[in-house]
């Protein structure tokens, strides 16, 4: 076949994701007009904020062509440590917990680069380890000490009609956007996902770039763990479980290719909105809670099937 004839019109994945978001909004509005009530929108915003934080990290690992299955474990560990430190360390609990997330991500990245084995295996393993450490710190849920209520109330408070957590999420988004768009490292992460061999031949330190990508994922999960614990006023070792699947769904539904190299943080912002609108809307229009899981699962498969670059992978593993 003539290679020129094969060039089809390419619609950027981001427009597909945007249309999907709008479609869902319309469906849920028709299904139940109170979907657009202020209170409900704030609920969606809160869950989108946490999804955004963990998705911001996850997207960098997926952009390199890897995946981070330990985000749930990191979130759980961070939430437990955060709660454990709040009483004695007060405000300092925030940076320390965040550092734990970053360190966890660094360990993931280092293992991947050093051992050269698929990241889904290393992070599957480390994810289990992080959860186990969280259990060793506290097997029971840790609740926020009353002394810290004031601080956590600020996270959950409101200004200008928006929840504070949404402002925090916006800040996190800006940080990751700058990393992706305006730093050499961010550019190299994307290039490496597109063509690792070429990057190596062009002198890119692929060893470190991969470590940085996973460290960023740890940072995102750290943020997400703190935010989640703050909204719930507690932390426990299973708190992050659902975010393993949800973070990956957020990234791929936003249109970032699992094969790496295409997509990014803006896509993931839309993905986070789609996921939280969908989660919330299915409840609002009264879809059976067990059926919801099937719809989410199907969504992920469709999103990946659309964005997956089949040319890059000759053998489907």
């Amino acid at each position, binding site marked *: 076949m*003539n*290679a*020129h004839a094969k*060039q089809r019109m390419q619609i950027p994945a981001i427009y597909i994701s945007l249309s999907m978001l709008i479609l869902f909004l319309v469906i849920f509005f028709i299904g139940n007009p109170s979907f657009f009530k202020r209170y409900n929108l704030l609920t969606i915003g809160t869950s989108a904020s946490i999804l955004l934080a963990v998705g911001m990290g996850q997207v960098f690992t997926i952009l390199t062509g890897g995946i981070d299955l330990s985000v749930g474990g990191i979130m759980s560990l961070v939430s437990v440590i955060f709660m454990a430190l709040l009483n004695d360390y007060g405000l300092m609990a925030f940076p320390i917990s965040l550092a734990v997330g970053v360190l966890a991500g660094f360990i993931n990245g280092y293992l991947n680069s050093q051992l050269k084995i698929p990241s889904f295996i290393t992070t599957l393993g480390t994810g289990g380890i992080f959860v186990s450490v969280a259990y060793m710190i506290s097997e029971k849920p840790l609740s926020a000490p009353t002394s810290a209520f004031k601080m956590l109330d600020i996270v959950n408070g409101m200004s200008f009609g928006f929840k504070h957590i949404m402002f925090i999420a916006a800040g996190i988004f800006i940080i990751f956007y*700058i990393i992706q*768009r*305006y*730093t*050499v490292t961010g*550019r*190299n992460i*994307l*290039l490496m996902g*597109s*063509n690792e*061999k*070429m*990057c*190596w*031949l*062009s*002198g*890119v*330190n692929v060893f470190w770039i991969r470590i940085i990508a996973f460290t960023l994922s740890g940072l995102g999960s750290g943020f997400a763990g703190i935010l989640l614990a703050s909204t719930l006023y507690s932390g426990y070792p299973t708190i992050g479980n659902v975010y393993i699947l949800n973070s990956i769904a957020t990234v791929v539904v936003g249109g970032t290719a699992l094969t790496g*190299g*295409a997509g990014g943080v803006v896509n993931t912002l839309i993905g986070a909105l789609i996921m939280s609108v969908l989660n919330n809307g299915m409840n609002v229009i009264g879809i059976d809670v067990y059926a919801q899981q099937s719809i989410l699962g199907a969504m992920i498969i469709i999103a990946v099937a659309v964005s997956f*670059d089949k040319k890059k992978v000759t053998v489907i593993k």
Partner: protein
Amino acid sequence: MDTVIELKKATKSFPGVRALKGFDLNIYKNEILGLVGENGAGKSTLMKVLIGMYQLDEGEYLLRGQPAKMKSSNDAIKEGVGMVFQEGCMLLNMTITENLFLSNEQAFIKNGILNLSEMRNEAKTALAKVELNIDPQTPCSRLSPAQRQMVEIARLLWLSEHYGKDNPVMILDEPTTVLQQKEADTLFRILDDIKKHATIILISHRLEEVIENSDRIVVLKDGDYVTEMPADQASVEGIEELMVGRNLSGEHFRESEQREPETENFLEVRNLTIEGVFEPMSFSVKKGEILSLVGLIGSGKEELCQCLAGVRRPTGGEILINGKNVLIKSPKDSIRSRIGYIPIDRRKEGLATDFDVADNINMLILNSLKSKGFLSRFKEAANAKKWVKEALIKTPSIRTKCRNLSGGNQQKVVISKWLAAESQLLVLDHPTRGIDVGAKDEIYHRIRLLAQEGRCLIMMCDTLEEDIGLCNRMLIMKDGKLVKILNCPAAEKPEPLEILSAIV
């Protein structure tokens, strides 16, 4: 003689190249047909057409008098046409028996289960036909290259028998490159025997071997049939002349733009070696010099280039840049020494094809395109525009994805990327591979300009003519040894024939 394969006006094109230009070819029963031609003459395309991997654009392919309808090499095997590939393709962790009958195991199913002992017996018989006296339960990883080849031949024979095709056609692609002389002799003795009930197509660079062992020789050049002759009337010199052709009159490689290099050395290589791949060799490249590396696959020239590009590490010797010893352990080191590597496979190793022209051109110098510590979109665009203009890259915009550019323009992007990084020495691995004629000339022009600016170029080209036409000097390598250094001044380019004899 009966024909088994008949090609009529066989035409096959790829974007930018006409690989087969519409010729007729008959292949007869019970013959060994030697097929010769330079790299790029169309041999591989022709073979892939015969085994159904490619379909002809125009023309007819008749197999045993019927139009051939196979769509894959698997179909071809069932029609009694098979190929033993240069690299060999068997599952090394499995036994000979398993490899012989791979994907045809249903022939041995009795009552729903595989009859293993029957398989083994059948394997023994099949191996006996190629005089391979070896336990069929041996894992293929323990076989010598010669034995592996025999197993593949035995497999093709068995398959054609299994599918009831008389006179199978077997294509052997460079069968002797991995063999010792004695093994090669055995191979040809067996082939001579097999030919009593089969047709063999022999592709080889070793012309003596082709003349000695085939019945008829067909010469291809530039995708076209040149001539054929009975092997007993052929001579090595005669075939070489036909292969190379005599169209070197006139200017093809911008010879008039060739300049004498400066006197200063940029690169000096002393006793560089990779043990077991190429022997210690020394040479130097002057500023403004174009140096061609010439030799067959396996001569060590590819690996030599990889040492310069930092892809492979030499086991001994020194590399000096501007008289200073440099240690090149990785591509990063070679970039630091101002060496750029333009790989043979642009799409896989030279470009991020999902990314746009600007991203690819800028990727080596991102650190210099910052303003206040952050990448500046403005500076990126300015640099990309400069190079698009400078290198005559034809692209709708600097934000066009590289996958949407033609091969020639992709190559210009890769070259620009290295020039933007101020590379002083470019290693060009087949720079015009798969590029159409017009774009080729622009690349030649660019190569000349780079040399005139005082940069060094080390090249491995697609054809010998290209090497001769472009270079100031030529290093000829054979079996891991530097055998000859040849000057190629613009006024008196050497004849391809004298070089060919040093290569082969």
